[in-house]
């Protein structure tokens, strides 16, 4: 009969063969996956090339200008379109709006809440909007 060493050798040979076979198959599988990924990447790159070409085609200056004229009513810039203030005194002073005596609409919407709620307590007699915000903030922090 066979010697134990012979059987062992046979077993090890087959074991290594099987491992080699498995490894080889795994590598081929990974190569296939890699090829697939590369193919997809290549296709995507080509798509990006096509899309970026299309983007530049659609953004041709003459087309954008046409769209601006037809869609937004913007005209060509002409020499006379540019107006320059040579003297700073000609530049008008900024308009300072005069606040109306009536309360702003947004203020009136904030109704004085019931004190029991404890959320918003508005005092109309306070002058500044900042103070109002501060007041609201404090009340909101304290409210439950």
């Amino acid at each position, binding site marked *: *009969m*066979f010697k134990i060493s012979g059987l062992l050798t*046979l077993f090890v040979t*087959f074991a290594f*063969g*099987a491992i080699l*076979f498995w490894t080889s*198959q795994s590598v081929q599988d990974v190569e*296939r996956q890699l*090829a*697939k990924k*590369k*193919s997809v990447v*290549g296709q995507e790159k*080509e798509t990006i*090339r*096509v899309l*970026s*070409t*299309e983007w*530049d*085609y659609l*953004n*041709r*200056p*003459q087309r954008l*200008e046409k769209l601006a004229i037809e869609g937004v009513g913007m005209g*060509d*810039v*002409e*020499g006379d*379109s*540019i*107006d*320059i203030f040579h003297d700073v005194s000609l530049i008008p002073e900024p308009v300072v709006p005069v606040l109306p005596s009536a309360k702003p609409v947004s203020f009136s919407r904030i109704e004085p809440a019931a004190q029991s709620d404890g959320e918003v307590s508005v005092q109309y007699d306070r002058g500044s909007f900042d103070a109002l915000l501060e007041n609201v903030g404090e009340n909101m922090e304290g409210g439950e």
Partner: protein
Amino acid sequence: MNLFQRKKLHMIGERSGSLEQARGRIVLMSAVFVCAYLLVAARSVDLMVLQGALQKKGEDAVYVAPIKDEKISRRGDIVDRNGVLLARSLKTASLYADPKFVIDPKTVTKELTKVFPDLQYGDVLKKLQSKKRFVWIKRNLTPEEQGEVLQLGIPALDFKEEDRRLYPQGPLAVHMVGYSGVDGQGLSGIEASFNELLENDDDALTLTIDVRLQHALRREIMASIEKFSAKGGAGVIMDVRDGSVLAAVSLPDFDPQQYKSADNNAQFNRITLGVYELGSVFKIFSTAALLETTNGNIAQVFDAREPLKRGRHKIRDYHAEKRIMSLPEVFMHSSNIGSALMGEQVGTEKLKNFYKDLGLLTNVNFEIGEVGRPIVPSPWRDINTLTACYGHGVAVSPLQLTSAVSSIVNGGEYVEPTLILNEANSEKVTKKSSNKTSVRIVSPEVSHRMRQLLRLVVTDGTGRSADVEGYYVGGKTGTAEKPGVGGYNRKSLISSFVGTFPVQEPRYVVYVMVDEPQGTKESYGYATGGWVAAPVVKNVISSMVSILNIPLPSKPKNIEKSLLRFVKTKEQIEKEKNIATH
């Protein structure tokens, strides 16, 4: 007696051992084969059952061609200075046939000409009946066309993937970018002169062109051509610091995709290949030459009361002032007589050398191949010196003129025009990376004087319609009669204007030329540079200001003011005339 009954052989001695060994080997071999068959069986199960089940679940059972590691050779892109595509190659399918497999050539031809109406029936039929194994039917199909051919289901037809050159900007910069043929070979412009680089380098070739400025220049010149019923036009925008060409337009132009159908007039590059006698814009050079030879002496006068007679030639003024004029007056009123006298003062040799230094007498060194040779009088006589002072007798390209003007106004150093922005790419084609040379043309003082004079032309002279308020445009008009049979044709003009701004410290030079404009009612019948080209430059500069977001000059200064003491007012001129008549 069973014949197949295994006989038990009892051997003893040496033969017994050999038998045992043989039996062992047979078992071993059998085991190897059994294992091998088991492996094959296992692999079959793996492929058919396990992997098959996986593919059914999620993956598409599509054959994926192995990707070669070879570098895909593809013609490089051409982009503008902001990375906007000017030319790119994209994969397209080209249709070919193997005539051996064409069973019924007539039917196939009929089907193909239905899909491609532009194909000639006879031509296709001839191809399909040939003995060749490969004939092109149509190159670079669109996906729709490819789909239609596939639907025909003709086995003899197949596709080959090819690159097609696309020009997304169409005709916008065709004379600079050029175009390539169906085989991807550059045939004109940058496509031709950088053919090898584009074929071997994947990196984009960056031009100095800005498509926005290119469009603004093209739009304005087109409008002027239409308004004045002109034959064509050209224009250049140049950065005076390094000679980079920001825009270069030659009109009429054509779509590079359809270059075969473009006529010769449209294909002709008026910017670099066309050479013209450009008229009074040359007075910039003759005046600069005089100032350089007289240490910048601005207080010189010239007798322009009578036409200048030299031999059998007589030099006249277009708008004759008929008086003694100062140097600034000669320049602002564009007096031919005064300029000719300047040339006489400078001398033939000095003026020739000056023009030579400005690059006006030799071919311009530029990156595209379509470059015209200047027409220079040979032999150069003294009368040629006089006419060359006001831009007649010497023909140069608009690009040469723009680069020469840039060299005068940038402080006086010569700049070569360039179309390539990327230094790395420039080095590859052995073009030096910086285009500003150390060749000094005029002193900084003379350069300043010239800028003052150019500004004077726009504020008080022939170029008033070029001014853009706040940006201090300086410039010079030019109206040249074109040479015809038996002399110059007075009705056939080249009207031009070269402007620079901001004139205190110029950054850009804008040159516009209109070929054979016809006067209109609005221009009182005039078709001069001041009427035709100066407003174009004004509009181009206005567009440039908004496109490039150019701020107002930080030190606004009317630099021409100091020259006004040399310019007589209308009242003074009237008074002098009255004194002369009484």
